[in-house]
Every structure is written in C-alpha cells, then in structure tokens.
C-alpha cells in the first residue's frame, strides 16, 4: 500500500467515524436491510395497512409485512422522507420492508399501485 493510498483510507475512516458519531449525515428515513427485532410492525392485509397511523420515537424502526397474496409496498412522495420520493420494494406474501425514522415529523405514505391504501407514521 502506498503512502497516498494509506492517507486516503485514513481520511475515509475518519469521515465515517465522525458521521456515525454525530449522526449529522443520517437520512431522515433510513431503509434497513433487515428487520430489527424491536421494530414496530405494521401488517398489510385485505388492501389495507392494519394500523394506518402509528406513533414512534425518533430513532425507532418500522417493519411492514404483507400478509396477503396481492403485492403491496410503502411509498413516500417527494419531500416526505427525503427530497426525492422513497418507493419501497413490492412485497409478496410474507415479505417485509423496514425503515428507521431519525427525525420527528409526520410521514404520510401509500401503496404505489393502490393509491387508496394510505398510512401515516408520526415520529415524536
């Protein structure tokens, strides 16, 4: 490893450590690869989010699980979870999608192919 490469690696590691420590660069809503055990669960069934309005604390995670054969997702329009829209993957029966909410606020969402399916996450 050359000196230059070592220096770059050190700078990158420092930057990552700072970000993790301060949370300054954390997204308002982070999409998670796996469902945290302590996440609040919202089941989806019969063309509805079973608990269409939930209230959580900043930093809590929410997991949506589809209970029916008809595919559904979770879709935040532009400006709600981020500047751009956040469109969750389509969930088949038994599949889940999780996100962590880092900032207080009200986050309205809907299902992309079923605009009449609507829900809300209130973060305190």
């Amino acid at each position, binding site marked *: 490893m050359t000196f230059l490469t070592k220096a770059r690696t050190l700078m990158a590691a420092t930057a990552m450590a700072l970000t993790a420590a301060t949370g300054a660069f954390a997204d308002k809503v982070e999409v998670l690869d796996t469902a945290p055990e302590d996440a609040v669960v919202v089941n989806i069934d019969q063309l509805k989010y079973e608990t269409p309005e939930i209230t959580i604390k900043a930093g809590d995670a929410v997991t949506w699980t589809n209970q029916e054969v008809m595919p559904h997702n979770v879709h935040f*329009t532009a400006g709600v979870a981020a500047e751009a*829209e956040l469109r969750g993957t389509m969930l088949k029966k038994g599949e889940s999608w999780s996100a962590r909410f880092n900032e207080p606020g009200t986050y309205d969402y809907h299902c992309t192919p079923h*605009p*009449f399916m609507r829900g809300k996450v209130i973060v305190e």
Partner: protein
Amino acid sequence: MAYPPKPTPKYLLLLTTCLIGSGLALGPSWAQTAEEPAEESQPAEAEAGEAAQTPAEEMTEGQRAAAEAAEKLAAGEDDEPVILDAPAPDARRVYIQDPAHFAAVTQQYVVDGSTGRVLGMTDGGFLPHPVAAEDGSFFAQASTVFERIARGKRTDYVEVFDPVTFQPTADIELPEASRFLVGTYQWMNALTTDNKYLLFYQFSPAPAVGLVNLEAGEFERMVDVPDCYHIFPASPTVFYMNCRDGSLARVDFADGEAEVTNTEVFHAENELLINHPAFSLRSGRLVWPTYTGKIFQMDLTEDQASFREPFEALTEEERADDWRPGGWQQTAYHRQSNRIFLLVDQRDEWRHKTASRFVVVMNAETGERLAKLEMGHEIDSINVSQDAEPLLYGLSAGDKTLYIYDAESGEELRSVDQLGHGPQIITTHDMDS
C-alpha cells in the same frame, strides 16, 4: 360533369387525363410505383373508366377526385398545390383516436361522417386523451412525449387545435408525470361546460384532477380528490367522479379551494360499472352500464346528482343465453331523442373487452327496447352524431375501420378503413341544436 357516351377520340383524351388524375388522387402509393406505369395501368385505367361511367352521386371519393382532376386538366387549368383547410365542424364530424396498442406515438383521424371522408389528422404522443368542444370551436388533447421516443425526460402537455386549419393554437405544459397513463377512457379527461378548463386525471401518487386554464393558456393547479375516477363536468366549476365506495363525488373548485361532497352509494359492490359510460355535457345525463347490462342513469347539475331508476338493457332470456355488453367504448347516448345505444353479444362473463356484433337501442326514459341492430362486423366502440337524424358510428379496432350506420334502421351506409393500428375512441361535437 358530362361524359361522352361512346368511345371517340375525345373520350380517349379524357381517359388519359383521368389516368393522370387518378394518379394524383391516389397519392404517394401510386407515385412510388410511377416508374413502372405498365404494371399499374390496369387498376388505374379501370378506375378511370369506372369513374367515367358512374353517375357523380355514386362515385367513390377517389373516382370523384380523379374525374375532377381530369376535367381541370382537360380545361387547361394549372395544378396549384396548397395546404387545405378542413370544412367547418358540424355535428357529423367524428374524431377517431388510435392508441395504437400502447405505441409511443399515435394519431387521430378527423372524418366527415356524412361522406366517410378523412378531413385531416393530428399526431399525438403516448396514450393521448382527445376532447372536442361541443360547440365545434376547437378540439384538443392531453398528451405525453419523451426525450428519446419512449425513454428519457417525460413531458406531459395539452395541445389545442384550430378546428379548420388543425394548427395548434396552444401548447400548455403540465407538471411532470401527472397524467394517468392508461388505455383511453372517454371521460377520464373532460372540458368544463364553458370550455374554459380542460380537466385531467392523476392516478399516482394520489388521486387528483389537474386544472388547465385554456383561456389563460396555462396549467393552474392540481385538485386533491378522494379515491374516485373519471370526470363529468356539470358547470364551469363543478364536476362529478365515480368513487371506489360506490358513490359519486361532487367537486367544486371555485374560489381556489376544492369542496368535495359524496352522494349516496348507488350500486352494490358486485355491480361492476364499465370503464366507458356515456355522458352528455350538454344535458348532464350520465349513462352507466354494468358488466351485465344494468343501466344506471344520473342527471348531473351544478347543485346535485339525481339518480334515475336503473333498468336492464338485456332481457332475462338474453341474459340466460349469455348476452352481455362488451368491447371498448360500449355506450352511446343521443341527447335529442333520449336514446341509449349499447354494444352487446353472447360472451363469457370475463370477455367483456372483446368486440361485439350487435347494438341494442333503448328509450332512456322508460328503458323500453327500441331496436337490436346487427352491425355485421366485430365492433369495439360506438358513438352517435348528435344531429336530429343521427349516424351510428361503429369502430372496429381489429379491422381498423369505422363503419357508419343509420342510427334508426341500422343500415350500414359507408365505411372508412386504414385508421391506424388499433383505433378505439370516437368523439363528436354536440352542436346541432
């Protein structure tokens, strides 16, 4: 126009001029093969000869054009190519929109129903929605194009056309990706009763109706609406929609805010209303069949929606024998005579989008069956002209042909073929009274 009764040197001269005239009238297809006139001379000669022997009133458009061109040539008149205007719109002008099976670009054909002659065409983008001012003052479309044919930056826009020159008189851009891209349903977009606004529907991310101020030439705003579909204007600022819960929504967008109220639920969950109701902007009558042919009717005014007693378009025996409505634009309503026309045939329950070969005609007031017309073709869409002696238009997407019938007798009068790739939507002007 006189033609010599016997072969004479003068006749031969005329025949020659007819041949040239036919070539002019037949246009590019003849022109492409003009270098090999020997092979093409037979049909052209036959047509010219036929034209020469056919009374003027029985001539085809091609024969008439050939004979006229021949006469001018014989008279020594020069050919002066110009850009033509269409005749002024009338109640028998009919617009045929061809969604072309979801192609990225599309066309609309403007036809004179009285003669079956194509008057002109307009180009559109992806799944454009056509509208026509009932008074004939303009026609327009909401359309979608992309930077690279079918990909790249998307632009939605409304285009207004002069009804005679077909030149665009307005081009109004819409907020990005707000048009609902869907197989074209006649009443998913609409003009307000004063022709001031074009209203278009947005499906995703949330139900909304876009207000395009045609008078000001600008997009105004999106109006949030409940989970409802289609747009039926009843006044300059009030329109109705059909909602998922089985009611109609009344939306008043005057004063900057949208006031939404819902009517009673007027149909059961298992009574499936088709995507193609008929509606008269002039009278406010909405005619909405179900998959089985039960006809719901409403009279929409600025103040309220009044529901009429539903009736069955098909008899009990017909329904037991698998008669059901089917096709695309399956319903037509003739305002002056208060008649309903519905495309029907024998079919499985879930073949509701296949073509039909029959039209039942009903008295909208009583529900009485007035006629059952055999169309003689696989018809996907129907409509009627709104004059006192209406024409019944039957459009076959498979044949790419508009068949034109007498609406009273059902007699086929004429047809227009080669209407694109998959023509589906028929629009008219209600301007006869």
